[in-house]
């Protein structure tokens, strides 16, 4: 009887590289959310494109139609000169608007100097362009940060604590300027942040939490008691993310609405 299970598993896993990898299912979960946001922004009349690691676009009919997701140890942004074989991103902009990049699994540098991986992050395109010159890590906090949890285990208070701590270390406020290696004006993210009020650092954590979209997206739910922290620190809890579920639609609409109404 168990032999029939083995046969079925072998035939399925043979066609699914991600199912043979410990982190594979989690990556597909992240990709499903990332592509959901991107197609919704297209529906909202944003220009959206797939972009290789060398900065070129993936077009229909082009010889290289590979979309590459990160894997293994997370890294920063690799230089464009390393070629198109590293992680892809999704670019977007509203008509006559600034370019933004949706990143997956990139490590950001916090004020402490520690690296923090953000599963899905939205950053100004100029930051991506600058980092692709020589490679490196963004410093600061993306405008959208989504922590993805593709686990059946309920989200615990510890999970919330870890995400809040990550965002805390990534937050750059005007009061931090005297300790920072970056020049004035103080920007929420660097290098090469565009200028303007949307991009400048805020005065307080409350201001920064208000000025960004932060969420934890889970396949399952949240342990009773876990929400107190998310609400206080401006982190939206999105449970029950599965294929075409109501939870998925709610998440995609919430992120997309924030992007559509806020970013330049």
């Amino acid at each position, binding site marked *: *009887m*168990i*032999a*029939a299970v*083995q046969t*079925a*598993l072998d*035939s*399925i*896993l043979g*066609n*699914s*590289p*991600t*199912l*043979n*990898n410990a982190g594979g299912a989690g990556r*597909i*979960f992240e*990709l*499903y959310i990332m*592509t959901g946001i991107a197609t919704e922004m*297209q529906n909202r009349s944003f*220009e*959206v*494109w*797939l972009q290789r690691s060398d900065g070129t676009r*993936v*077009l*229909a*009919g082009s010889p290289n*139609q*590979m979309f590459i*997701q990160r*894997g293994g140890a997370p890294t920063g942004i690799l230089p464009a000169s390393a070629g198109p074989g590293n*992680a892809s991103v*999704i670019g977007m902009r509203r008509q006559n608007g600034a370019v933004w990049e949706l990143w997956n699994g990139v490590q950001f540098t916090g004020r402490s100097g520690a690296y923090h991986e953000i599963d899905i992050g939205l950053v100004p395109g100029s930051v991506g362009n600058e980092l692709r010159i020589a490679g490196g890590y963004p410093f600061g906090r993306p405008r959208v940060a989504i922590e993805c949890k593709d686990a*059946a*285990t309920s989200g615990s208070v510890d999970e919330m604590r870890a995400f809040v701590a990550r965002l805390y270390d990534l937050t750059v406020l005007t009061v931090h300027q005297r300790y920072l290696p970056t020049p004035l004006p103080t920007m929420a993210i660097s290098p090469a942040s565009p200028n303007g009020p949307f991009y400048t650092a805020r005065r307080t954590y*409350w201001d920064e*939490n*208000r000025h960004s979209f932060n969420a934890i997206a889970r*396949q399952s*739910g*949240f*342990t*009773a*008691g876990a*929400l*107190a922290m*998310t*609400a*206080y*620190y401006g982190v*939206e*809890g*999105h*449970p029950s993310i*599965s*294929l075409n579920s109501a939870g998925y639609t709610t998440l995609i609409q919430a992120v997309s609405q924030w992007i559509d109404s806020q970013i330049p």
Partner: protein
Amino acid sequence: MATVDPRLTPLIETLIASGADWLAVEILSEIRMGRVDEHSEEELKEAREAVETFRKEKTVPPPTLETRQTSVRHLSGDEQIEFAANYAVQRITQNIEMAGASLQKLNEIANRSTAHLGVPSDSARQKADIELRWLDTEGTLNRSQTEEARSNLPALWKSLSEWSNSAREGTQNG
């Protein structure tokens, strides 16, 4: 923590032998953890609305919500077997379906962005056919592979259901 029922051993060994050791670990971890009391959808919706209000109203302080204690219920042996069979098939199904849907969305993005650019060449009139690749994984994933994997799902559902029934009835054999 709960004690894992030894009748799960054949399934755990089979998952490991098939290369889905991560799934075996998840199942064991879930069983040992037990079922915890979760926030209701209504509570989560209220919390999200509170965050939204906090973002919009510049003068209000962040919302504070009442903290609850978590309760845990451990699964019986029969429940563990039923849970493991359902979990394995649902996890694999969900992964394949999400991969297929993601590929479809990537193709949609590439097709629409190509049309947006108004590229006049013949090649640009072709439909996108995106393949997925991972930096630490051998091989790629395309639409035909996800369709092939999907076609084998009914056999997995059937075999796991039969194993679950026989294990709980004490009639399983190699």
